[in-house]
């Protein structure tokens, strides 16, 4: 039969079969999380984001290689150390990546994860199964966070490897001027990546909010990036210096507190609460909107 249904005995699937006497195990957040990760593994945008996180450090190291042969150095933090230790590469990437690269990589998935379900009409498919809406929201949010963490750590790890091949796995100079050994430097790099996840988490929450509200993937991705750039813009406007400590863009520099001796925890603590100030309302709004919204499209 080419166009129709098969002749299999439907009584095997008939009412009540498989239900009697069994306690039905209900799916939850874990189920959604696992399937969301699988779905991400099958989507091009995931590889676009993770690919960019991996390739940019390599391109950066290649650029350092040629620049070193021409003039060397620069006028930003760690610039003079770029050719002396590969451990500096991921740190410099954190510095410049905060402007748009990491927010964009994060927004690629955060802005899409709900909106694409609207676009494909699949939200109604999953909402008519056995999952509460909060299961779906939480599973998706956790999967997005996992993607963002993966992107940051891929970028950092590729940066360390590529930088070490170019400049060697050497000791590194902290922002206080002291020299730390390569293993200690590596530890500081990964701690910096962890601290960097605080503002990245906020970008995730903003992306989820826009994805839920706009129901349009492109609008949510671009909107998330625009908000991130807007914070950068406010930070450089004259007369708004008092706002600087409370801007999301400033919190992308909090990791630098780890590279002082003794460690300056103040920017890290401030990043935690300032980011929470942006992230919690965004996430809560997205959650409530998702819980209460009508699913009328698709």
């Amino acid at each position, binding site marked *: 039969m080419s*166009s129709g249904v098969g002749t299999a005995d*439907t009584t095997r699937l008939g009412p009540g079969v498989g*239900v009697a006497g069994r306690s039905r195990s209900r799916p939850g957040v874990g189920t959604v999380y696992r399937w969301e990760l*699988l779905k991400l593994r099958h989507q091009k945008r995931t590889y676009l984001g993770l690919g960019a996180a991996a390739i940019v450090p390599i391109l950066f190291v290649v650029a350092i290689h040629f620049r070193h042969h021409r003039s060397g150095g620069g006028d930003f933090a760690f610039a003079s150390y770029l050719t002396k230790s590969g451990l500096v590469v991921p740190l410099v990437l954190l510095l410049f990546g905060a402007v748009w690269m990491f927010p964009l990589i994060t927004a690629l998935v955060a802005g899409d994860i709900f909106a694409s379900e609207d676009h*494909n009409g699949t939200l*109604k*498919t999953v909402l008519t199964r*056995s999952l509460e809406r909060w299961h779906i929201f939480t599973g998706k949010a956790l999967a997005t966070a996992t993607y963002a963490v993966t992107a940051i750590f891929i970028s950092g790890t590729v940066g360390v490897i590529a930088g070490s091949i170019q400049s060697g796995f050497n000791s590194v100079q902290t922002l206080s001027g002291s020299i730390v050994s390569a293993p200690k430097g590596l530890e500081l790099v990964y701690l910096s990546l962890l601290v960097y996840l605080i503002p990245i988490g906020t970008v995730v929450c903003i992306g989820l909010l826009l994805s839920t509200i706009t129901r349009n993937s492109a609008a949510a991705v671009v909107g998330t990036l625009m908000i991130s750039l807007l914070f950068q813009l406010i930070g450089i406007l004259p007369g708004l210096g008092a706002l600087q400590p409370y801007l999301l863009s400033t919190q992308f520099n909090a990791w630098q507190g780890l590279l002082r001796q003794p460690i300056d925890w103040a920017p890290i603590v401030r990043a935690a609460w300032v980011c929470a100030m942006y992230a919690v309302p965004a996430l809560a709004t997205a959650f409530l909107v998702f819980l209460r919204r009508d699913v009328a499209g*698709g």
Partner: protein
Amino acid sequence: MTDTAPGTSPLEERSSPGAPPPVEVRGLVKRYGELEAVAGVDLTVKAGDVYGYLGPNGAGKTTCLRMMLGLIRPTAGSVRLFGRDPQETVQALDGVAGFVEAPTFYPYLTGRRNLELLAGFDGGDAGDRIDQALEIVDLTDRARDKIGGYSHGMRQRIGIAAALLRDPKLLLLDEPATGLDPAGMRDMRLLIRRLADQGMTVLLSSHLLAEVEELCNRVAIVRTGKIVYEGAIADLKRGAGATYRLSTTNDERAIAVCRAQPGIADVRVAHGRISFAADEPAVADLSQALIEAGALIHSLAPQTVTLEDLFFSLTEGDGVVNGTVPAGDPAPAEASR
């Protein structure tokens, strides 16, 4: 939470005799600003029914189905599936499956992967039913292809397969045959018939009146958000009364006789033919009266009333079909004479 007898699942208890009906909708209203998409719908689908939900485009059928599945919130009124409100808990959908508009899936995953995902979201032993569900809808051979490459008909069929994973007692289907070729439509009808024969309750919305007439025992006909008829198709036809067509040697005189004759209703003239509604004894009396009046009969034949006739009368006419009682009316409407 109610106690369940040992060895009896909550779902079985919900479908036992005396249990709440599979679908009970009361005073359902959905407004979008000024637009009232659903305007006070009442309907009851009983266990074992194959229930047709009929109406023209924009009548609010899909909106109503979305509210039944908990996808959108009613402005007013209530939906109960086996006695549970889908707005309150997703457990109201236990034993319920279906789709609204076209079934949708993740295009970048294979058919099987999509079903695995949905089975995971169903929990229980839904995953054990994937192979059989694919076999039933004849998609076993294409299960490892991405759904993005499926035809419309294949998507409709895998939509049915996805519904069957839930081992449903109630199937809600929105235009299941839309977009299918004639063979696909026939096979979809056969599948629904088979499922219904096994005791599954089915509510399907459709534009295809012949399909509904063939499959369904009860219908609701909706017009601009309101139910204009709810009940058995047989009752609808019975309520419509028998109609006859008449041709005589003197039609003008015959019309006057018909209008004066007791038991003859809804006398109309179209394309030179007289039609009227009456029961058999009244028709016998009429033929006698016509002869006495000198209007000799060329032909006098009963007309078959189809669901399509009734549907158009209810949705495009005045909502009254030869004495049919529109939903919500307290007494039979008096036919025009």
